[in-house]
């Protein structure tokens, strides 16, 4: 550290050194002024536009980040919405499937019931027709048996009735008719 008493010596030495290097106080001042002008010029011509450009770039980046964030949010909402829609679609599909299965079951039950009813009606009608045919056949058989029996009876009676039998038949008929009419 220099002592206060040594200052004139230092200044003298510095002046000697500047003299040996060809530097004067005026040239130093001139360079200082040039430096100030350069600094101001650089500040005005370079620093400010660069700073403005950087600020604009930063704003652009922020804007892009904000847009990106908005897009991410929108994507999230869309994803949530699509998941919600998908879930609702799944529920709706399940409900439609269940409804279709139920309707198909009911339709199948209806078809089976109708088929059973038709089969029952067919069986009943067939049984009724069979019963009718059976009765008709029985009636026809009875009639044929009666006809054959009577035919046989006619032949037998025609051959076997005697004169006395015939006389008795006639007299019994006359008596019967007389009794009926006379009370």
């Amino acid at each position, binding site marked *: 550290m220099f002592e206060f008493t040594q200052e004139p010596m230092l200044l003298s030495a510095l002046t000697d050194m500047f003299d040996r290097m060809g530097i004067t106080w005026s040239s130093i001042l001139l360079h200082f002024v040039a430096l100030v002008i350069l600094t101001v010029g650089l500040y005005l011509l370079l620093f400010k536009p660069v700073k403005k450009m950087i600020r604009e770039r930063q704003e652009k980046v922020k804007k892009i980040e904000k847009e990106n964030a908005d897009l991410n949010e929108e994507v999230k909402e869309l994803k949530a919405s699509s998941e919600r829609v998908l879930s609702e679609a799944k529920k709706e599909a399940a409900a439609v499937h269940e409804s279709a299965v139920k309707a198909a079951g009911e339709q199948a039950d209806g078809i089976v019931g109708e088929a059973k009813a038709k089969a029952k009606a067919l069986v009943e009608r067939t049984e009724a027709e069979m019963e009718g045919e059976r009765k008709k056949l029985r009636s026809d058989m*009875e*009639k044929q048996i*009666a*006809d054959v029996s*009577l035919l046989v*009876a*006619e032949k037998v*009676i*025609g051959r076997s*009735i005697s*004169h006395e*039998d*015939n*006389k008795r*038949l*006639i*007299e*019994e*008929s*006359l008596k*019967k*008719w*007389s009794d009926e009419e006379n009370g």
Partner: protein
Amino acid sequence: MAEQRPIAKVIVSETPDAETARKIEAFVKERGCGGAEYIVDADILGGIVISVGGKVYDGSLRSRLEGIRRSF
């Protein structure tokens, strides 16, 4: 002039003897007929059928058999 009395139509399977004929005559006369016209028809098998006016007395074996047939 006496009123002409109708003749009863009598169907038999064989010609009746005199006693039966008298009973038949008496029967038809009681019902206002002047006499009986006999028709022999073996198809009635036996017995007698008498038509007096519009009334028919049917005592034939064939009608009895028909009755049995109807009852079946």
